[in-house]
């Protein structure tokens, strides 16, 4: 029988957890990211490996997660509903479990036209709620058709995404509740840039059934310059934060962004509603020491 993953064990403790997103290379050599991995290794409890982020084709996260495991780093494998039907989702999950990858972040996936293969067919055979349900069933040694799996059941720790800062929050909360019901063990938020923007969510949601991670993001200069609601999928930057950074000279943006994010992380730590923070550093992974 497999044991619970290291990440699952940390989730059961009281520790404040730090995770960081890392995109696999667009190529065959995971070692291309060795410098970033070395910088992150001792700063985080797990690395969340993205799955063709922004619908841009990259190395499959399963291979990259195995590379991280070999380096002694706990991976969380993202899996999106965009690129695989229910057969492929489940068989990839079984393969991941077979390779020792036990932490999964199950998400819908940015729409295909955002990426570098915009003419491709999007799948969405299952949605993220149904995928969470499917992974919960795999943990019971069954597939979603009800067939029993051979050998020991996988022991996935199942993560889901949640939007804390949308202006239209009630439909998002409906989905969040369904994800809780489908068996999510932890939640990772879409990036937040201040705690004021999550107030409405917590007004509606007083009790959390699973640990919640607040995601913070180092915005690029281009994102700050070009931002408008809907311009970048999943990115919702409150106006006061945006204005603060738009008024800066280009060279000042990154250091001030790091300063802002470090202060936000401290606030999140003290806040009490979050079990941890998830860092989206967008190329600035080697500067993690300035944040945590």
């Amino acid at each position, binding site marked *: 029988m497999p044991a619970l993953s290291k990440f699952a064990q940390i989730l059961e403790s009281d520790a404040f957890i730090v995770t960081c997103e890392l995109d696999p290379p667009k190529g065959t050599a995971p070692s291309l990211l060795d410098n970033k991995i070395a910088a992150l290794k001792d700063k985080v409890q797990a690395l969340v490996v993205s799955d063709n982020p922004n619908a841009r084709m990259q190395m499959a996260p399963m291979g990259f997660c195995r590379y991280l495991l070999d380096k002694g780093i706990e991976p969380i494998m993202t899996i999106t509903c965009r690129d695989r039907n*229910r057969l492929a989702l489940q068989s990839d999950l079984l393969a991941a479990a077979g390779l020792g990858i036990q932490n999964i972040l199950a998400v*819908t996936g940015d729409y295909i036209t955002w990426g570098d293969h915009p003419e491709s067919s999007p799948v969405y055979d299952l*949605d993220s709620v149904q995928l969470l349900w499917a992974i919960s069933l795999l943990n019971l040694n069954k597939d979603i058709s009800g067939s029993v799996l051979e050998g020991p059941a996988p022991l996935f720790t199942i993560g889901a995404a949640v939007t804390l800062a949308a202006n*239209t929050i*009630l439909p998002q909360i*409906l989905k969040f509740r*369904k994800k809780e019901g489908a068996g999510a063990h932890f939640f990772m938020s879409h990036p937040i840039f201040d705690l004021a923007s999550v107030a409405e969510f917590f007004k509606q949601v007083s009790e959390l059934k699973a640990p919640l991670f607040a995601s913070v993001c180092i915005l690029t200069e281009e994102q700050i310059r070009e931002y408008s609601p809907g311009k970048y999928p999943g990115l919702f930057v409150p106006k006061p934060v945006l204005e603060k950074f738009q008024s800066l000279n280009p060279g000042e943006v990154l250091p001030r962004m790091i300063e802002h994010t470090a202060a936000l992380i401290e606030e999140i730590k003290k806040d009490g509603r979050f079990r941890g923070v998830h860092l989206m550093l967008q190329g600035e992974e080697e500067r993690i020491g300035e944040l945590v």
Partner: protein
Amino acid sequence: MIVATRKPFEEIKKSLAAYQNILVVGCGTCVAVCLAGGKKEVGLLTSQLRMSFGLDKRKVRISEVTLERQCDHEFLEMIRDQVKDHDVLLSLACGAGVQFLAEAYPEKAVCPGVNTTFIGVAEAAGLWTERCRACGDCVLAVTGGICPRTKCTKGLNNGPCGGMVDGKCEVDPERSCAWVSIYDRLVREGRLFQIESILPATDFRRQTKPGTVTHAAYLRRYHAGSK
């Protein structure tokens, strides 16, 4: 209705390059309503083709006819004599009509003059929008008369994706998120409970192509299964 748009003129002209006797066949139903392939559009396209071939100094004979429908045998039969004199049929019907015309006249080349786009409605003058994906498993009773499989770009069954911003779609910020619309509608109707439980995964067997529907009264005649 089925909504179509006319193909670019150059593409149509290229598809007719090998022929001298062209019959442009319009369809008086859906594609006439969406101003893509009815009598008026047939007339315009025929004139445009004549002028263009004339400028090219090509001798091409072009005739035109518009049927009430191209998706019924009885209407296709009405042009049997006229078809004999032509070597290509340029159909301005939807994809179904084009294929039925091709089946009715297997000895003739058939080319499409429109791109068939979706099942939709005339939202305003000159504006047609999609409403139905013909999934064979209608959930509109649950989702407040708004189809998530059509109006949500991702076709999600259980609520909005995280890309929704200010109630707008991740893919098109000008368009309302289907799940926000569904949510608001069901709140107004006091039926939100209908989407609070997890909707199961779509059964895609109902969308196995090509679909066949046999009316219950005709089952014995055709010995076919019903969709």
